[in-house]
């Protein structure tokens, strides 16, 4: 049975000879990303914790972006979405992304509002 795999990652800059090689390549990439995350989490560089972007520390932005990068490669290469039809891929990927973004937006805004009520309202909870 012939099975074709798309063997290039990083938009074609890195090509592998066989599927097995690609798997090991992706593993190395994911391990590097995890190591970077843990190293940053332990050292917590001043420059990244001190500065914020849209109300969140730069360090946390880096963590979240690296997580999404990892998620992308797990889904695309381990769950081989890369080899599926684009219609299937889009149905699977965009549905949760849309719903989850909406949920996060709503909940975090609401939480921030409650935080301000606790902080500025005539209400004491930290005693």
């Amino acid at each position, binding site marked *: *049975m012939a*099975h*074709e*795999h*798309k063997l290039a990652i990083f938009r074609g800059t890195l090509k592998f000879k066989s*599927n*097995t090689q690609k*798997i*090991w390549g*992706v*593993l190395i990439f*994911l*391990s590097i990303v*995890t*190591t970077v*995350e*843990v190293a940053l*989490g*332990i050292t917590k560089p001043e420059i990244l*914790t001190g500065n914020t972007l849209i109300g969140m*520390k730069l360090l*946390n932005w880096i*963590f*979240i972006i*690296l*997580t999404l990068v*990892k*998620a992308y490669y*797990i*889904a695309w*290469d*381990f*769950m*081989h979405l890369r*080899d*599926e*039809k684009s*219609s*299937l891929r889009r*149905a*699977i990927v965009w*549905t*949760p992304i849309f*719903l*989850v973004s909406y*949920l*996060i937006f709503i*909940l*975090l805004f*609401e*939480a*921030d509002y*409650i*935080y301000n009520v*606790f902080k500025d309202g005539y209400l*004491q*909870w*930290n*005693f």
Partner: protein
Amino acid sequence: MDTTISTGAEEESVWGGGNRPLGASYGKLMMWFFIVSDALTFSGFLASYGFSRFKFIETWPIADEVFTHVPFIHGNFPMYYVAFMTFILIMSSVTMVLAVDAGHRMMKNKVILYMFLTIIGGAIFVGSQAWEWATFIKGDYGALETKGGRILQFVQADTGQRAALADFAQVIPSERETLQRNDGVWFSSESSLPSYSLEEVKQGFLSNPNILIRTETLNAEGEKTLLTREESLAKIKDATLVVEGANLIRNEYGSRLFADFFFFITGFHGFHVFSGVVINVIIFFNIILGTYERRGHYEMVEKVGLYWHFVDLVWVFVFTFFYLV
């Protein structure tokens, strides 16, 4: 489409059934639908974690200070063990893809080997998580809880290290014992008492000027606020309870919601890993029995593989939002 294995007759009639617009078999599609809905469940949990965290953004516990242990080694090692667990899970994901890949090439023995390694990886992960839970429940230093349900922790003034209750609490002889079911009123009992009573901790604190109190509130540098000795002496009057370890009701590390979400989210994920291991074992024996060899394709391995990778994918997010951010 390229990796899909044909499992039935290909028919071209559009309305007669049998054709596959998405190029995936029924079973695989259903697995994907399950994964999407499960992903939404996990997202709901993590988003509600974010909600509670943003609500108490100034007092949320710092994960680095909570998860500092590594089995068999003493000392303060934040993150290392969780990083190891992450790596184990990614590794078992890799052996799973290798099993799927070997299945495509109909190499039964390789599939068996890789499935075996995957199961081992999953078992190590579940075991690690059980250990992590046990450590979290047992607790580290112990703390006091105030009337408002906030946590007061102790720090040694000279070294800046955390102080355990055992380091300074005075032992006052008392008769107070845990109420068992066979004592006193029939069928009433209580959970085990903390190692030190509130009075013992208070007395020890008053007689030891080296001990300061740390509150839950985060300061501008993102660290817990350390009170001066005078402030500490005033603060300890608010204490009502001794808390050791964490459970669903009390949590010595800080906000109770942190412990609740920890148990709920990692527990739900751990349950997924556990059921994944069970399914993998079933498939493993099916492979050994030659079921898929006779069926002519190893699509079943691919389907459990999808589930297994999904479990790994969820862990990547749990790792970030619970331990890193």
